[in-house]
């Protein structure tokens, strides 16, 4: 119980530094709006309206009834964008959580125990890092077959090494501190030392990496879907919507501009939050 007020003040300090940056606040607001609208859209529109084709209303321009018009199959683009946001954010966050969890375990073990375990684990991670990220993801998708779950697994595996490295580096910075020594002297088990004493003190860079990786994952989801190896139509995914619209882009440029802008805005908002967090958590800027 005695720890509580101190923890909150640390959060407040970070928040105070974070809100100094207007761009970071803008990013946070945009992320909040995106999340909220992706969360509540099923309350207003049925998922079927985003998938069902209606050839009587193809290529309708922007209007009050269809804010962003309709696509080549007569589906309302606005509704598809909203369900697309759901998919991107959901898959993005699930992927990053999975790779954060496994990457943290590997990085924590490697950093805490050091020596040969560290050497072996980090060599394996280096090999994974030497394979271009998208390429690794594509090969795994090819092996597992298409589908949202397999895409999630593939993207998660391809990100594990970057998390392992960040977590290991953060742990190395606090491992030698006196309070860790003290905890060890008291006979605290290693797992508890890692979870309760090291990770909370090394969390800054990990949070930043997590945020930036969500943004990168959203880009990767759309890229893989664009080349037909990610989420396939008719699921309203932004990348596959771009691929669908490519042949008619001269006649109907809004069909590519809207999904493209959606990707860019989402990724940019998340990146702004990540940059803001980096500045707010960077110990070098603290007095």
């Amino acid at each position, binding site marked *: 119980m005695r720890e509580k007020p101190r923890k909150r003040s640390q959060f407040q300090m970070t928040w105070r530094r974070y809100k100094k940056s207007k761009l970071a606040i803008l990013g946070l607001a945009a992320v909040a709006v995106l999340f909220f609208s992706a969360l509540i859209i099923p309350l207003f529109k049925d998922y079927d309206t985003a998938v069902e084709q209606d050839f009587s209303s193809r290529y309708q321009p922007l209007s009050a009834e269809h804010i962003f018009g309709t696509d080549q199959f007569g589906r309302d683009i606005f509704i598809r964008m909203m369900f697309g946001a759901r998919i991107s954010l959901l898959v993005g966050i699930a992927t990053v959580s999975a790779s954060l969890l496994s990457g943290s375990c590997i990085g924590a073990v490697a950093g805490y125990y050091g020596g040969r375990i560290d050497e072996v684990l980090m060599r394996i991670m280096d090999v994974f890092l*030497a394979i271009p990220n998208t390429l690794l993801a594509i090969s795994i998708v090819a*092996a597992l077959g298409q589908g949202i779950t397999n895409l999630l697994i593939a993207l998660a595996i391809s990100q594990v090494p970057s998390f392992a490295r960040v977590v290991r580096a953060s742990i190395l910075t606090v491992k030698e501190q006196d309070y860790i020594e003290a905890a060890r002297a008291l006979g605290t088990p290693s797992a508890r030392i890692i979870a309760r004493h090291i990770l909370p003190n090394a969390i800054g860079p990990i949070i930043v990496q997590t945020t930036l990786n969500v943004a990168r994952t959203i880009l990767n989801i759309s890229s893989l879907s664009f080349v037909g190896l990610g989420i396939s139509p008719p699921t309203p995914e932004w990348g596959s919507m771009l691929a669908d619209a490519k042949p008619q882009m001269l006649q109907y440029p809004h069909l590519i501009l809207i999904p*493209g802008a959606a990707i860019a805005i989402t990724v940019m908002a998340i990146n702004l939050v990540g940059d803001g967090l980096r500045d707010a958590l960077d110990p070098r800027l603290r007095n």
Partner: protein
Amino acid sequence: MIRYIGQRLLMMIPVILGISLIIFSIMDLTKGDPARLILGEGATLEAIEAKREELGLNDHFIVRYVKYIAGVAVGDFGRSYRTDAPVSEEIFSRFPTTFYIAFLGILFATLFAIPAGVISAVRQYSAIDVITTVVAMLLTSMPGFFVGMLLILVFALMLRIFPATGISTWKHFILPSLSVASVTMANFIRMTRSTMLEVIRQDYIRTARAKGASVRRVIFTHCLRNSLLPVVTVIGINFGVQLGGTIMIEAVFAIPGLGTYMINAIRQKDIPAVMGSVIFAAIVAGIVNLAVDIMYAYIDPRVKSHYERFTKRGRRDAGKA
């Protein structure tokens, strides 16, 4: 120096073995029988079994892997399941295309990013700085293939200045290279800006100014040279990655480069082609990284003296043995 290069090349071997093992295992898990893929759906069971035997598919995983690596060691990447042509030939015939696009792309990006980064660091918080930062931010947030589509829409379909797809003339290379540039540029700008800012605050810069060196001279000879080192690394790494094939951008512009080759191979479960192109990409990236490290020595005398010490010590040790 030569000793150092040799050691670095040797260090690439375990990495490449690891990569090939990972990709080999992934492709092994892929559903579908390569023999059936080669012979088509109408093939008899006996024919498929004979083909499996011929390709060595009935061997144990480890036997197949060792055989493959033994081939790679003497430059034999096997034959494509789909075209029956040697994989190494197919890769080398596609490499020039990918090379031009990657090279031009990185060149465009560098030519724009370094001046932009320097100006926004020198005039920190000015309008130019804000604009550059926002543009860099926007570019990192846009997928490369979307930038490619926008370029096609504006310059190929609307203005009709450049062709949209293909590789027959030099004009075909402009839009894909610009897409590559847009993906990589933001990184370069940020890196140049932040290292410049760091260097500008150093004591020796203040000393140089105090001794009466002009602003121009301080920026170009004192700051830029010192802040270029991390930028060169980032440029090098990006170039190495792009040389392995820019899958999405090649897909947008229908370019028959390494990226297209790779993705078709993965789709068709053409294992030798996948393995060959991935290993090739890793080797190229490794060699480019090594070249960047060697370039350091010429940019930064501190690094050069480190190499020389390294080599001398090496010779002494060799002499002892």
